[in-house]
């Protein structure tokens, strides 16, 4: 490890590795550090992502692809289901292999990759970030950099040190819990992702997902907003679900965690530092999916930061162009998804059950979003008020 780089990326998850890859591809001198002993572990993820974004960064590879998904089902609490094609072709990935493959891609592009290396603090000059204090395999050192990229995830310390950490209200955090279940053969569709929604008997204010990992196993997980995670815990809700649908299934792994679902934080750059991925709350504010969004955030950050580094101006003012790129691409959509989540959170389970039952009878494949909305509104006029929120936030304008 050297004492100075152009860029230090803290965290080798998808966003951090994507940032390191893009910076290295642009010819910059990059250090990519990961605090864990091994990249991709522990997995804290439902492991669904889209093919298009993945291919922007690395070739598709059977080593990390568990399943190709061609349909999604939205299932209500009484078993009616609406089946829709994915908005973008989906894969279920093995995050451990995926994360390592992407980090390797960054390393092959020239980034210096180091595991067991933790950021202890930031170096500053006149308030601007000029590097980081690190501990690498037990040895402390100071490393200077023109730019530090905070990609250290949901519990980002680096964003906190930079003064960028915001702590949203509990209603804007999902509490998550997931089992990877096995011995499921014949009890689920291994080509289809399911979302189970039921605010009173399935997951208050959130949903349960069933994402196939193989013909015999699936990630079965739950998210519920933190303000509704008591008195029954996310774990207890998920155990109820599993007992009901997959009694006797084997548990291959357990994952717990929390995800901010506000949409990206407004300020994602200060002098000499940018924040990307979960550290910047870039996950989808409805589903909380964040793999491809974090990678896109990293790409946008580097699209702005690489020329800024070249011209020698890494001021907040120069770097904050990245926020404008993000807003332009995802701002309106995430605003709409946030609004949809708030509507779903408020909806009584019985109303949602009726809505899904109604939609299940419509020829969805041949209908536009507007036609679908019109049909549903005719059946459920009370939705009209909610639909106005959606229209004003732009969902139907897309």
């Amino acid at each position: 490890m050297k004492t100075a780089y152009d860029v230090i990326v803290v965290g080798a998850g998808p966003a951090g590795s994507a940032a390191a890859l893009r910076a290295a591809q642009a010819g910059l001198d990059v250090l990519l550090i990961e605090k864990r002993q091994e990249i991709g572990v522990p997995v804290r993820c439902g492991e669904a992502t889209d093919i298009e974004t993945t291919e922007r960064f690395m070739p598709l590879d059977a080593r990390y692809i568990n399943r190709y998904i061609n349909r999604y089902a939205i299932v209500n609490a009484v078993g009616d289901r609406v089946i829709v094609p994915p908005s973008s072709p989906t894969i279920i990935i093995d995050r451990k292999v995926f994360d390592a493959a992407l980090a390797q891609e960054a390393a092959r592009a020239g980034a210096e990759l180091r595991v067991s290396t933790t950021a202890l603090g930031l170096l500053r000059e006149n308030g601007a970030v000029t590097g980081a204090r690190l501990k690498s395999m037990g040895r402390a050192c100071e490393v200077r950099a023109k730019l530090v990229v905070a990609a250290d995830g949901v519990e980002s310390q680096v964003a906190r040190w930079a003064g960028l950490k915001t702590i949203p209200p509990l209603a804007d955090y999902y509490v998550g819990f997931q089992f990877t279940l096995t011995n499921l053969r014949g009890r689920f569709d291994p080509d289809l992702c399911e979302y189970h929604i039921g605010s009173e008997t399935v997951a208050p204010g959130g949903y349960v997902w069933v994402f196939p990992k193989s013909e015999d196993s699936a990630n079965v997980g739950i998210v519920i907003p933190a303000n509704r995670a008591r008195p029954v815990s996310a774990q207890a809700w998920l155990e109820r679900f599993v007992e009901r649908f997959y009694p006797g299934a084997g548990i291959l792994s357990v994952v717990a965690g929390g995800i901010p679902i506000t949409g990206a934080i407004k300020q994602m750059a200060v002098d000499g530092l940018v924040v990307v991925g979960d550290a910047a709350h870039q996950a989808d504010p409805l589903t909380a999916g964040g793999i491809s969004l974090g990678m896109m955030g990293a790409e946008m950050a580097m699209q702005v930061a690489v020329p800024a580094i070249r011209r020698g101006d890494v001021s907040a003012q120069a770097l904050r162009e990245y926020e404008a790129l993000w807003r332009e691409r995802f701002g309106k959509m995430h605003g709409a998804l946030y609004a949809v989540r708030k509507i779903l959170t408020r909806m009584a389970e019985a109303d949602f059950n009726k809505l899904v039952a109604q939609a299940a009878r419509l020829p969805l494949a041949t209908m536009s979003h507007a036609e679908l909305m019109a049909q549903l509104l005719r059946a459920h006029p009370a939705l009209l008020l909610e639909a106005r929120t959606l229209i004003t936030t732009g969902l139907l304008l897309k």
Partner: protein
Amino acid sequence: MLKLLNRSNNRQHDKRLVIDHDLCFSCGACVAVCPPDSLFLLDIHLTVDHNTCTRCDRCVAMCPVHALSLVPEEPLHHENGV
């Protein structure tokens, strides 16, 4: 926001955050929502700095497995100045 925190602090000043390490998965969900940054994952061991903890209760709500709780402080601790 600060006012809110202070209020909850006043309401809960006689309580103390307790971590059930048997239940904890070291997932860090609580660390992310702690306003004063009083929770730490040292490797996989979750610890709380009781001196800076405001007993705001956010981490308790956030825990996927209900491993955290605010319990009445025992008088003994006061006497020891903890």
